[in-house]
């Protein structure tokens, strides 16, 4: 196992990876931008290297500085977390060139699956159903317009290097598409370091269902069940759960098998997620593969009892997967809500500021509560980065039990000083549609459409 590892990220994921490092006896080294330097979560690192000023592109996205930081800190490996450089094959290749083990897939597999256009081509070739749209990347706004005409409106623009809904724009006509193209490109450039876009026919509604896979370097690959992520706003996931309330056992087995086959076909290593769209008619389409740990990995951990970050580190260190598919037992139901510093009553306007209270009771049952966060009362939420401040997860033998556990926790939670999505989650979890499992990506169950 590695002795020392650089965590090339910030906030909640940096803390999550540092915890796994401690469990395995690895010394975690952090990085920070100038404005993050005083942050309390950096206390969980054995050392911290300052990368640059607050803007991500001058700090967390500076590949040369990040890899140099790993080298001069004596780190044998680097965990990219999610976002930032985590799905950048050039960055993975740079790590490989400099002898730093990148905790993730080989850059070649990432190059195919990390960028959406080649991924779609690979899946099409493998006979997996894909959504109609551009074949490859869009060179110009005019190409986007031509492509949209062929696929038919509405269409959706996506960042080739994207994820988490950033750099995505839905367009109902040509004028909207032309206007959206430049903004989506700018957002993608800033968030991922690449402004390349592609386009797909927008399928109204449907459910977002994704399968967690994990592979080692010896050809072993397992899936850890699915996650249902259909409660979204502008393609930003708000609530995730496992198992999905709409899948029957046969479909579950089928998409799990497809996901493992897809990962094997490209020589995938490490943690990955295959995202599927389940259309209203029940058809399943491949959407994309995220070649990294997901924000919502915790729900899969709760139902499987596995620690996905431990497994990531073990397979990165040339270990064999310690578990085979028949031994992966999924038990009970897990639900996660993302607490973002955004005001849901005010158009989800970002709400940076200082947290004056930050408490989640964990003992109200009937199930168990897990809180993943890097914040505590007195900390300030930076205006420079993502608005995620905590993830609250509940696990119980039944879905009803998980909902009740999470509701009990959130009703008694105290989060003060900044506006958060907490009131939204209370409304969602308590809504008839959510409890019945009859919702899709179009609307937030229990939350008025006008407030979106």
């Amino acid at each position, binding site marked *: 196992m590695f002795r020392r590892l650089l965590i090339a990220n910030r906030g909640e994921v940096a803390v999550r990876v540092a915890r796994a490092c401690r469990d395995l006896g690895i010394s975690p080294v952090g990085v920070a931008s*100038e404005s993050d*330097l005083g942050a309390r979560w950096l206390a969980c690192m054995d050392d911290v*290297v*300052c*990368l*640059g*000023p*607050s*803007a991500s592109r001058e*700090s967390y996205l*500076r590949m*040369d*500085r*990040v*890899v*140099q*930081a790993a*080298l*001069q*800190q004596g780190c044998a490996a680097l965990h990219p977390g999610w976002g930032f450089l985590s799905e950048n094959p050039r960055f993975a290749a*740079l790590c490989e060139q*400099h002898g730093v083990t990148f905790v993730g897939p080989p850059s070649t597999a990432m190059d195919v699956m990390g960028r959406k256009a080649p991924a779609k081509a690979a899946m099409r070739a493998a006979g997996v159903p894909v959504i109609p749209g551009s074949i490859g990347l869009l060179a110009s706004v005019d190409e986007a317009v031509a492509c949209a005409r062929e696929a038919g409106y509405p269409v959706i623009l996506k960042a080739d290097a994207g994820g988490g809904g*950033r750099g995505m724009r839905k367009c109902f006509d040509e004028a909207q598409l032309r206007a959206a193209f*430049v*903004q989506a*490109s*700018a*957002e993608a*450039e*800033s*968030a991922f370091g690449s*402004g390349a876009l592609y386009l797909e026919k927008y399928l109204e509604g449907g459910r977002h269902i994704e399968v967690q896979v994990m592979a080692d370097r010896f050809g072993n690959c397992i899936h850890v069940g699915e996650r249902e992520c259909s409660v979204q706003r502008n393609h930003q996931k708000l609530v995730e759960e496992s198992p999905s309330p709409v899948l029957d056992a046969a479909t579950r087995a089928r998409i799990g098998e497809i996901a493992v086959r897809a990962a094997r076909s490209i020589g995938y290593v490490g943690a990955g997620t295959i995202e599927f769209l389940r259309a209203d008619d029940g058809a399943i389409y491949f959407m994309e593969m995220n070649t990294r740990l997901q924000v919502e990995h915790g729900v899969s951990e709760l139902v499987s009892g596995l620690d996905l970050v431990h497994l990531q580190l073990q397979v990165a260190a040339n270990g064999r997967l310690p578990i085979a598919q028949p031994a992966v037992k999924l038990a009970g139901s897990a639900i996660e809500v993302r607490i973002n510093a955004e005001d849901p009553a005010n158009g989800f306007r*970002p709400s*940076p500021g200082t947290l004056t209270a930050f408490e989640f009771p964990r003992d109200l049952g009937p199930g168990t509560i897990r809180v993943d966060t890097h914040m505590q009362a007195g900390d300030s939420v930076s*205006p*420079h*980065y*993502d*608005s995620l401040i905590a993830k609250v997860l509940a696990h119980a033998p039944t879905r009803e039990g998980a909902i009740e556990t999470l509701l009990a926790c959130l009703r008694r939670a105290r989060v003060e000083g900044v506006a958060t999505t907490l009131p939204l989650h209370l409304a969602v979890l308590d809504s008839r549609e959510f409890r019945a499992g009859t919702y899709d990506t179009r609307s937030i169950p229990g939350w008025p459409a006008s407030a979106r």
Partner: protein
Amino acid sequence: MSAEILYLRARTEGEHVLLECPGVGLFTNAARDGMALVAGARAGTLLTLGRAYELRVPDDVAGIVDGDLHERVQAPVGFGTVLYRLRPLAGATARSGRDAASGAASGAPLFRSPSAGRFWHRAAPGEPALVSTGDVIEAGRAIGLVEVMKTFTLVHYQPAGGLPARARVVRVLVADGAEVAEKTPLLELAPE
């Protein structure tokens, strides 16, 4: 082939001027205790992934190195690590921070930022700026983007608060990508 040049960052601390590292890497060829460092002088090398960057002293700085802070060969440093502590030479001061929107003609109409964030001149890298000096703007014209928590919002000209309905842009007061507070002046205008 000459090495790429990076300027050190200067700030004052009491009587001293501190010169900080502008990147991450191995700092080598450091100037020694007692040497004079003045604006433009070479002040060591930063090695980042094997590439050598020549470090130079920024404008308006002149001083004597007061003590060795690092090993002279390949000291690992990060962004903002203090590389030199200088006793200033008489008459020299460290450059104060970024120039604010100073110098706008007093009383000229100013269009201000609707929110705090990072102000961008163009919609995408490589695109022309949305507004330039001399442009005539009217209500609703997009003049830039403000980035808050990775979300980009177009800023539209709103002739409220006594601003002219049609105006000529005299100056863009904020650099591309600069941080702005709510109500930071973005444009100096003249009625058209």
